[in-house]
């Protein structure tokens, strides 16, 4: 998976640790960039703020986007990504820890590529992450190639 990159947008440090752990345990060794709120995610993607000067020709192969984020929430991040030429086609998987069904159509209307509910059991979550990694990093052909 050389040159492949995951952008993980997650504000909860526990969730971050567990997701990174699940990625490592599922043998996904891509580089992972973590953005801890929506503003940071947009700064990374567009090379602004703390990421000013970043080479924005390098874009994540997939973005794992938590919906509940401080400052700019996940849906708003998604909308702004879809409104910008540079990011409008990037694969985005929205992750939610709730099972509130009304989030789901909203995510797809905002052009998410996938919606995943995070299970409470870490063993199940690791399996979810393994399948996500396999699909989005290996099977799926990204739009830019």
């Amino acid at each position, binding site marked *: 998976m050389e040159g492949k990159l995951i952008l993980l947008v997650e504000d909860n440090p526990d*969730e971050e640790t*567990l997701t990174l752990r699940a990625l490592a345990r599922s043998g996904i060794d891509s580089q992972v960039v973590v953005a801890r709120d929506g503003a940071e995610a947009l700064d990374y993607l567009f090379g602004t703020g703390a990421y000013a000067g970043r080479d924005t020709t390098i874009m994540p192969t997939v973005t794992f986007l938590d919906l509940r984020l401080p400052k700019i929430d996940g849906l708003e991040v998604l909308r702004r990504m879809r409104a910008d030429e540079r990011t409008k086609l990037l694969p985005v998987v929205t992750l939610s*820890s*709730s*099972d*509130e069904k009304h989030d789901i159509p909203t995510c797809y209307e905002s052009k998410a590529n996938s919606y995943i509910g995070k299970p*409470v059991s870490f*063993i199940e979550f690791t399996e979810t992450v393994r399948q996500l990694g396999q699909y989005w990093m290996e099977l799926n052909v990204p739009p830019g190639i």
Partner: protein
Amino acid sequence: MSESWSGGRRTFIGIITDETERKRAEDERARHALALEAANKELEAFSYSVSHDLRAPLRSINGFSQALLDDCADELGESGQDYLHRVKASSEHMAELIDNLLQLSRITRSEMKWEQVDLSAIAGSIAAEVQRSQPERQVRFDIAEGLADQGDGRLLQVVLDNLLSNSWKFTAKQPQAHIEFGAERFDGVPAYFVRDNGAGFDMAYSGKLFGAFQRLHPTSEFEGTGVGLAIVQRVIHRHGGKVWAESAVDRGATFYFTLKTGEENGSGGKINLVGGRQSG
């Protein structure tokens, strides 16, 4: 208002209605509707927050317990590992409780969509599904054909799912398990039933059957959150029907439900309504 002349006298006849009371009632209704809408919105926001914010810490508890088991198994020793397995199992149980509670509250709020519902088809697909979940179990299903009625299909699916899954669960120790879905007449309306030859329960406790978080079996024997039958009862009541059960310990259980009210005080019912008290 009318005007007339009689003997050089001009007479007016009019009707005066005091509109104050009607206006007041109208205003009050509008105020109530607004308050209800606000309360519903608040409840929705509350349950949204519950489902998000209560699950996140559970994911941490479960995940880091697993991390300890994975990374520090040797240092933990056997009893340490056992404790962590219990922590993990509890976090999963609590997640299930949260899901069931939210389901219960959603069922109360959701709007009913009346349609013709093919109950036999729903029961058949649920039976196939539970059988797939444990293919090693030998269970005979008898699903009566052609049972259909007016109701909300999504909610009735929840009812049959709960009743058939319960039968599946409580027949686990029965080597020749038998689960049946059918209908009888009760007070002039169809009473649908799910019958099994499983563990059953003591009718003395039947009053607790449909209360949320009420369980008649220890978790060690049969797992569950005790919300399933509360959900069933709520759905059936929303349909204007009744739900009740008949059972004896180790002699199986039969759960009946109707989807409309029968003839009141009807004596023609074939079914002995022993357990009917708790349904109403």
